Every structure is written in structure tokens, then in C-alpha cells.
């Protein structure tokens, strides 16, 4: 950090770095940030680059994370504001509801032929993959977290409600309709599985 705190410029206040401890995906992440640093930048700076920045003004939703279970725009939250909250990012998503029908079936390098995979995908991730809900993948983590929050909060949301909530994020490649279909498929599958 280059700020000295002794500068004379009246409009550039001292920006003394502070140390923040964040609870991210059930692990402790300690970072030293200026108070003005956003949560998105702090997470990315800590190596959690799955939280992406598409606009940094709160519209596109690429930076969506869960803060105490609620989807928020990490580009609009300061890192210091997230102290004391439970943060979930896309990196913490694999492993969620990963084996509803049997083990081994959802290995990332199985049918998908992916070299060096091995991550277990959650049911939401699998529904995105199988439903063509992503192309370039840049918006995907944000949509996954938004969907995750919605499915947990309102498991029985109507089709209109799902469309409504998911249209708060932008997907340039697919337009978002296949993402709505994928989330609807998760709703149906979870209902059938009785969960």
C-alpha cells in the first residue's frame, strides 16, 4: 500500500489499510484492504476469482455472492461491511446436494470428458450444464449464486417469479431464458426427490 496518511491533498483522505477477517465458504479469509475496497475486489484479491466483475455498478449481477444466504452484488458491498457475515461464493458451491441419486456419477471429468477435472458439481451446476444455460461462462457464477439463493428461499417459486428474479442478472450469450429453464428443472428434480 502506498498511502501514507500524511498527504496534504484535502480531497484525498488517508486510506489506511485495515485488516478484515471474512468467513468465506466456511473458511477464514484474512485480508488487508483500504476501507474503500469492494467485497468483490477483496475476494478476487484473495484468489477467489470466480466472483466476476461485469459492470461494477450493480446492474449485471456477475459479482453476485450470498451474504448470510441472501444474494448481493459484491461490487456494491465494501469488504469491511461483510465482517461478521457468512459469505458464499461459487467456489463453495460444488459439494452442495452433489449426490441425490448415487455417488460417482457427477465427477467433473466423467461424461464431460474434461481434462483435469474432478470437481463434484451441485444439482444447480449440473442443471446449468445439461440445459445449455451457459456459453462463455462469464455470467455463470453470478447466476448460480442468484439461483442458489432463490431455490433456498423460495423453493416453490412460480415460473413468473423465477423469471423475475433471474432477470436481475444479465447473460449476453444465452439471453437468460435457458437459465430460467435450468432453475425450473432443479425445482422439479428436488420436488421429485422429496427434498
Amino acid at each position, binding site marked *: 500500500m502506498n498511502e501514507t496518511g500524511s498527504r496534504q491533498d484535502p480531497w484525498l483522505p488517508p486510506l489506511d489499510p485495515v485488516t478484515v477477517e471474512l468467513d468465506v465458504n466456511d473458511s477464514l479469509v484474512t485480508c488487508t484492504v483500504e476501507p474503500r475496497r469492494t467485497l468483490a475486489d477483496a475476494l478476487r484479491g484473495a484468489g477467489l476469482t470466480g466472483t466476476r466483475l461485469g459492470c461494477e455498478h450493480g446492474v449485471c449481477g456477475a459479482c453476485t455472492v450470498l451474504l448470510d444466504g441472501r444474494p448481493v452484488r459484491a461490487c456494491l458491498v465494501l469488504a469491511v461491511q461483510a465482517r461478521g457475515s457468512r459469505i458464499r461464493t461459487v467456489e463453495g*458451491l460444488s459439494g452442495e446436494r452433489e449426490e441425490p441419486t448415487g455417488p460417482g456419477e457427477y465427477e467433473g471429468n466423467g461424461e464431460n470428458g474434461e481434462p483435469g*477435472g474432478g470437481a463434484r458439481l451441485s444439482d444447480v451446476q449440473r442443471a446449468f450444464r445439461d440445459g445449455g444455460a451457459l456459453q462463455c461462462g462469464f455470467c455463470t457464477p453470478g447466476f448460480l449464486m442468484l439461483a442458489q439463493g432463490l431455490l433456498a428461499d423460495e423453493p416453490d417459486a412460480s415460473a413468473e417469479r423465477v423469471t423475475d428474479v*433471474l432477470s436481475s*442478472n444479465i447473460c449476453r450469450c444465452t*439471453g437468460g431464458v435457458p437459465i430460467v429453464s435450468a432453475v425450473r428443472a432443479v425445482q422439479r428434480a428436488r420436488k421429485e426427490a422429496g427434498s
Partner: protein
Amino acid sequence: MNHRTPSVGTSTPRRGVDDLLTGRARYAADLDRPGQVHVRVVRSPLAHGRIAALDTAEALALPGVLAVYTADDLPDVRIPVRLPFAETAETPPLLQPPLARGTVRYVGEPVALVVAEDPYTAEDAAELVDVDIDDLDVAATMAAATAEGAPRLHESSPDNTVSTVSLRHGDVEAAFSRADVVVRERLTMHRHTAVPMETRGLLAEYEPATGLLTLWGGAKVKHFTRQALGAMLGLGPERVRVVEVHVGGGFGVRGEPYPEDFLVPFAAMRLGRPVKWTEDRAEHFVATNHAREQEHEWEIAATSDGRLLAFRDRAWCDQGAYVRSQGILPGLLPALHAAGPYRWEAFAVDSTGVLTNRTPTGTYRGPGMTEATFARERALDLLAAELGLDPAELRRRNLIPAAAMPFAFDAPEQPHVPPVRYESGDFPASFETLLDAAGYEALTRERQRLRRSGRLAGVGLAPYVEIGAVGPFEEAFVEAADDGTFTVRTGVSSLGQGVETVLAQIAADALSVPFEDVTVDFSDTTAVPMGFGAFASRSTLLAGNAIALAARDLLAKAAAEVGGDPGEVRFDRGTVRGPGGATAPAGRLPAGHGRFDKPHPGFSFGAALSLVTVDAATGAVRVLRHAVLHDVGRAVNPELVRGQLAGAASQGIGGALLEELVYDEQGQPLSTSFGDYLMPTAADLPEIDVFVVEYPTPTNPLGLKGAGESGMVGTPAAVANAVADALGAAARPVTRLPLTPGNVRELLRGTPSPQATTVHP
């Protein structure tokens, strides 16, 4: 998978998807190099002016700032044009310098570059660079730029135009004199662009010891970027390495060489530190290529029974303030697509690039063809209304019949104009397929039902042709390894298209090996010596055929080793076996090499069909059904191609209804955030019906045609025609996009536009 089952034609799951789903995928902004520093571009706040003074002292004094560069620090270089046929005698003096030299010509033009230890500091320091600009008069629109006494943007162009592309076919005057009906209209497509969700980003590192420069993030036309940078930075191209990483959508704008593609490596070489740049969204809206802004004066001559005789298209295409790496394509591509899929006796097209004090333009998915299709298909619907003919019937009577293939208009050859030649396909049958499969009859019945219930509802159609397979060539190498795997190297790019999956399918079939054993490597310019990149729906076609040839070459080399014909050798778990039983380790074989040349581009057919309703009170348009059809020649991976078509159509609906890059009279951009530039979301879009037809072309061994843009091309036209149909004859005709609620209310309010003229000779 049984390796005897062909992979081509199956919807093999796309590769690498898990990295995207888990957040592991690394895009440019996710990359870091030890010791890296960050840049911020200082941009012009004015649309036109002379730089009187540039004071960098205060910025330099900020702790953490390493350097501030202005044009004086740079060699006098320009970003070159990338395609030979898009370069004319007029373009060289109109090319953009990486930093403005003396004059600024659009808001957002780079004037200085700040380098700092931290991105936040770089941004702070950029605010401290004091740019003193003396205002010049602004040519904020094409009308202003071409008016008498307009302010001149560049010394070399007294009338603010670039080049005019003229196409002539047949005797236009004679055809018009025989016409029963002539329809004229001025049609305007608005400025909008690709807006991928990931902004641009670059990371450059220079190693003084080896003299090697590496640039991460440049994609789409890596090999050209390498050559251009090599020349501009005074390194040979062999000392520049361009590495593609994951990209968040390309759609034509990403990966072209931009000013920043020079500035970032330049700073890395000067400072001897890795340099990173991530564009922010507000910058993206003024810095990355804009597109689409054009005006077309269309005039059609027809007989009373609906036979098309001839047309004239006088087009003005906004180039913005400079000619960028795509040269005159903004004016050339619409000219090539004006005629479309119809059998005209004669036509005359003149398409002029106009310089304005706005962000320069380039190509956006379906470039030129989307604009030309909008203008032509809108004019055809006006003609259909005039003749009292069903719009589908008018098209049906005039589509080029299959028996006429291959078909060419007898326009004289010109150096900068590729021939308009349709190689193969059955336009009428494909068109009927769309009408049947999407249920044109049912849609028109649905329209009547909606109308009876008091709604404004309309159906719109738009057939088109799309250029693809732009050469000149691609190369590929196929290597076998002893562990039974194969590596394919090619010069195209992925750009989030799933191309690597499709190319692996082609290689697997050509080698008769399982798809899983093939990996495709194209991320790096060192992987293959030459390549032209991912544009104009060319990747699968050119690289695919090159790979098929390389695989054949590898089989021939194997046969030389183990005997027999190339068709008889078999690869089996790292061993190659000849028909006589002789074997050799596969890894010992030299790489197979293939090169596929495509001197002339091809064209393919498609069409879009839309059913919309309009809320008479608010002017809001809702697309209820939207169908797109395209002739892909041969679908290597049907699911992936359908996803591409549906995604492109969704973008087209956004372009028709929502998106616009608005400027004020002083050339100030008003759409610099997602609050002002409205992007379509799930709530604005229907599920897209996609129909893929396959009429393989004889001009390449795999029979492929391009498809990456096709869902786009007819979509704005079909939506516009549907809205016009919904508004009815009492409203003003739809002559410009986007059809925002405000613009639609205007149309509903007014008497027919004074511009619209229908002449009965």
C-alpha cells in the same frame, strides 16, 4: 464411446464446461504475474478539439505512480487494418494512433496512459492528469458530418467520407422503367454493439533477457495482433507471443487490435514489469468498437404480380472518428448483403463510410448483413402491403431457385469487393421449412385471435443470406502420442463458442479414434505458426477442414511407417498398426499437417419469423414467438449450433427493441452504463425456436457453412416487420430501430411519415 460411431453430427457435450461452472476458469482479469503493475487510460472528455496542454506532473507526484505516457513518448504508429480487402487508398491516414496526436476526435479517445503499483492508485492518478483541450466544432451525426461546411475530422478527407463501395448488376434504369410499382423508403439502423459481459483485459510481460514479449488476453485474431505488435513495437513477430485465455463473449468486438493492445505491451517493455489492464464498463461503452449505425435509401421496382425487378440502395455507414482494424467493413459488408436471397434482374448499391466524432465502429455479430437485411426486408414488406400480397408469398415468388445454384450476380469484379456468389443450398425449400416448422399459418391465426381480443399483434418475416468462410486459409497440425492421445493445433480462437469441442469431433472422425482421446490447442500463437482467427463464422469451416487434411496427412505418414494405404492403418492405444500387422509407436510419427484455402467467401441462407404484441397505451413490444432457421451445410454438433443460433437471436431482439448508444449534439455519449444501455434479460425474451437445415456445400470436403452469427441476421428485420404489422396502416411505418416504448408511441401517434413514398408510374 465406440470409436466407429462418427462423432460429427452428434451433440457431444461441450468440453471444459466444469471450469466455467465452478469458478475455476481464468479470464484476463483473473491472471496475475509477479511484480505486475496496473494501467489506466486517460481519455478525452470532448468529442473534437486540439490538445493545448497535457500536464502530468500532479499525477506523477502521487505515491505509487510509476509513469505517465503521452503521445510524445510513443513511436508514431497507427493501428493497422487487418484484412487486405478492407483497406483502400483512403484508409491509411484515417487510422488511429494509440494515443491522440494533437487532436482528439471522440469522447473516450486515449490521450495518456498512467502506470501505478495498484489499480486504485492508477485510477486516482488518471484523474490528476490535466488535459487542456481547445474545442473544435463537432460533427456529431452522419447528417452533420456530410452537411455543407461541416467541420472536417481529418485533413485527408475533405468531405468526411472514407470510401464508397459500388456494386452494379444488370440494367437498373431499364428495369425501373418497366416497373408497375416502385416503393421508396429511408431506413435507419441505430448505433448499438456487442457488449460482452466480460470487458476487455490484457496482461503483458517482457523478458529483456530473451527479448520475448507475451500478451495474455488478445484473442480472435491472435496472429494478426502478433504481427502488428511485432512491427509497431520494433520487435519481430517471432518475439511476440499472444496467449488466449478464457473470454467472456466476443461477438466481433473482442480481440481486434485496439490502442490498448499497443499501450499495455509498450508500458511493459518500457518499465520491465508485467503490466495489467482491465477495462471498466464505462470505458467499454466508449472504447470498444461500436457498430450498426447506418442509413439506407431503398428503392424497389416490381411488377404488379409481385415479381422483383430491381433495387437501388444508397447507404451511409457511420465509421466513427477513425478507421479501425476492420477497415471499410462497416460500409463494405452491407453492400455485399443488399441483394439477399432474391433473383433481381438488376441493382445498384452505393455504400459510403462516413467519419463522425463518435467512437469508431467495427463488426458486431452479423455485421453489415443484419443492417442490410433490415433495410431490404422492411422495404419488401412495404411493397407487399402496396401490392396487397402476403409477405411470405412475395418472398416465395422471388427466392433464387435451387436449380440456379451455384448462383452469381454478374457484377463486374473489383479489387476490394469479394464476389457475391451463392455456392449451394435450396432457398425456397429452406424457407418453406421455416414456415411449416414454426407454423406460419398458426401464427397468423394466433395474430387474428389476439386482434379480435383487442390487442395489437403482428407477424414478421425476414429471409437473408450471410457471408461466411472468409479466408484466406487456416493451418492445422495433428500429433499422435505414445499414450494414445492426439493433439490438434490450429490458429483459430475459442471465444466462448465451444469450437474446441467441434474441432475435436472432426479430428476424431478423421482419425477413427475416440473423441475423448483428442485435445485441441489453439490458445497460443506458438502452437501454430499462422492463423487468422475467429470471425465471420469461419472457425469451424476453415480450421475443421484443415484438421481433416492434417489427420489424413498423419494417416499417410503412418502408412509410410507400417505399410498399407492411409485408409487401412489404425491407431490403437498409442500404437499404429498397418493392414499387414506391422506396428509402430504412434509418438514416433511426425505431425500431420493440413492447410485449407478458401480464396472466396461463401454465403448461406437463413430466415427469421416473429410474432409480437404491442401495448397500445405504453408502446411496449413483446415478442411472443421467435423462430430462426439457418442452412449450416452440415451440423457438426447440433446442440452447440442451436445454442449459438438462439443466443444470437436473443441479442437481435435486444438490438431491435432495447439497446442504443445515444449521443447528444456535442458528441457526448449518453449510454455509458447498464442503467442507460438496456440489455435484454430473461423477462424480455421468448424461448427461441431454432431450425437447422443441412445442404452441404461442395466447396469444402466437410460440407460446412458458417453459422455463428446467423440467429442474429434476420432477427431485427423480422421483429421490425412484425411490429409494423401490429401497428397497422394507420400508424407511421417502422423505418428506424430500436422500437423502444417511446419510439413506438411516436409511430402510433402520427400520420404516415413524409419520407415514405410510393410511386405508381
